[in-house]
């Protein structure tokens, strides 16, 4: 399966701590994207990293990509209770806009 795999499946931390989530995949990619989903609602795009990029930042988010290991990580620094959500990685691997989704990490940030 080309589906991404994420770990951990669930993560519980205290406010102010950093949260790191990992994503692995099996095929060559055009880009890898991270999304957030609150309580089974629609997903919101967080950050996109292309196959020729190694690191990207957006606010408190830092994404790394290692194409040799076919893996990516999402780091959320100084977490807040509002960061509580499920986080999904998705890869774009073809010549269209279709995405293949990881299993997701459920993050709980405790006040």
């Amino acid at each position: 399966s080309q589906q991404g795999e994420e770990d951990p499946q669930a993560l519980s931390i205290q406010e102010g701590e950093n949260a790191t989530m990992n994503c692995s995949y099996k095929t060559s990619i055009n880009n890898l994207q991270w999304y957030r989903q609150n309580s089974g609602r629609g997903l919101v795009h967080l950050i996109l990293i292309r196959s020729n990029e190694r690191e990207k930042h957006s606010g408190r988010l830092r994404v790394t990509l290692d194409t040799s290991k076919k893996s990516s990580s999402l780091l959320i620094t100084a977490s807040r209770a509002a960061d509580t959500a499920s986080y999904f990685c998705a890869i774009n691997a073809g010549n269209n806009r279709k995405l293949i989704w990881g299993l997701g990490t459920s993050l709980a940030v405790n006040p």
Partner: protein
Amino acid sequence: SAVISQKPSRDICQRGTSLTIQCQVDSQVTMMFWYRQQPGQSLTLIATANQGSEATYESGFVIDKFPISRPNLTFSTLTVSNMSPEDSSIYLCSGTGGQRETQYFGPGTRLLVL
């Protein structure tokens, strides 16, 4: 950025019936997608909704079960036909277009089939 709305937001249906979910985008998007998400699970792509032509279905999904229409660039419907309890899920539509490589998502439709 595009805003996507879905109707209904949730529904409870009897087995054997059908439900049509509507997806409206507030600006034109090139591609629209329909997903299914079981509670606590990942997203599974059902099909790509093509404007003015038949949708492109992923393996395991067929038109008879999930007919899709897309009459214009801003609107699409997904029908879940002859429902069974196994169809209980969240159904999500998304759109993308132009130079954008990421997807905008609707809020989802929670379906419970009894």
